[in-house]
């Protein structure tokens, strides 16, 4: 099989496979407070929490939940 055809085939396969994955993920991806609640929240201290690893102030978390 010619080399150029192989590369094109591989690239096309990647693209074709990626599009439905992206669409599926976009449909199921929750947003705003629902999504926030599904993330892992770990208290750091009385001022900070970690949301999915991101260290933010408790007040910032409260604002996002609203």
């Amino acid at each position, binding site marked *: 099989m010619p080399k150029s055809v192989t590369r094109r085939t591989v690239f096309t396969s990647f693209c074709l496979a990626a599009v439905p994955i992206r669409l599926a993920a976009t449909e199921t991806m929750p947003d705003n407070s629902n999504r926030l609640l599904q993330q892992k929240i770990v208290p750091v201290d009385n001022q900070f929490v*970690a949301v999915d690893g991101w260290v933010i102030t408790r007040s910032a978390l409260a604002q996002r939940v609203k």
Partner: protein
Amino acid sequence: MLQDFNLLSNIDGEYDSCIVGTGPAGMTLALKLAASGEKVLLLEAGGLSYSDRSQELYDCESVGHDAWPKYTRLRYFGGTSNHWSGRCRPFEKSDFYDRSINGLPGWPIRYGEIEPYLPEAMTILDLDPDAGFKPINKPSLEDHFYPDAFAQSPPTRFQAKYIDQITASENIHCFFNATAVDIKLDQSHQAVTHIQVANYNGLSTPVKADTFILCLGGLETPRFMLNCNKQIKSGIGNRTDMVGRCFMEHLNVPIGSFLYREPEAFTKLQFFTDDQFCQSSSIGKSNITMSIVSSVKSYGRTKAIKTFFKNLACQMQIEDKVQFISDFKCPGMGTIGTLIEQAPNLDSRVSLGDTTDSFGLLKAQLNWQIGAYDQNTIRQAALTMAKEFSNAGLGQIRLADFILNPEQEIKFGHHAHHMGTTRMSDDPKYGVVDRNSKVHGLDNLYIAGSSVFSTGGACNPTMPIIQLCLRLADHLKA
């Protein structure tokens, strides 16, 4: 004078000093002592360039955390300076304060004893002493982190820089392919009479000097001393069983990533932990570097494919799961690098394994361990940095799960800095060399290099190694 010991049958002559090892420590000492009129014998076990045959002799078994002991040092003329990165930073004054960690004392000397040697050390490393050490960023983070200052050596390759000078020197007799295989003590076991040196052809000869200085690095120095066990079973300088103990590295911990407030304006940030913070929290020092990797490392069609997947993954927020395609970060995302001090720990050690090398010496066995003190250092530094980064309005830090969850095992790597295995202490119970780098209990055996570090701070070790060598040279001349 520079000669290949493979082509010779013996090394004649009487020398003031015999220096074993031609890395930054050995070469600095040789040049300094020779300049003062001393006759110096300088020994290099490897050749003038890299060879698998020589490097194979650095084979070392890892039984603890792996620090890549075979590949992180180089066994030929110039030693590990042949591949070091050139990053220079002196110790902090506070590194030399009185302190006790894990029941072990810190440095017996004060920073003021090596500070006068800083300008000369900078010159040796091709740095401008007048330029000093400059911070790469301005903002401090509240009270606990300040902008780190360092200087970048070209980096200095000691072989390239000094081989002509050593070849032309009348006072330095340097032999390569000359492996030190044994140390012979006098009858009272209080002084070294000679070191036995072997070449690759199976020939071995004694070399004599008034003073002997081992400059073999943090792994090979203890290995050699432990192997010299014909007269004293426990090895040379090992009466208190301290040779090889307290192996320290600088911890390279992937603590997380970050989003900067103004990604377009970002270059790099580097912070160093404040000493008050470290003391009050009972933790070691940390050097934290933040940088953004935005470019995809490939070209042509491959780059197009990788860029496509990068953009797709970033939009879908699944970048962590597709890193196998290409090492990238999403726009604005940065990586955090760390160089964290490890505390001395008796259980972290170099000892002898069961197999021998081609010279009949037992290979080293490295059992690198980190303890609760180190884990606390990592977690405290990372959490405090994340909070202060947010408070300063610089952006947000996303910490790794193992930082936030103390039950998870911390992931860490190394920086190829081998320290502490013949540590300095006034009390032989806690160290191998005294405050002058002389081996306890022996009149004329000294050690130079990072193996004498009592604690490692959070700076790259080459600069302090040079400072300590210049200090030792002055001591020996006196």
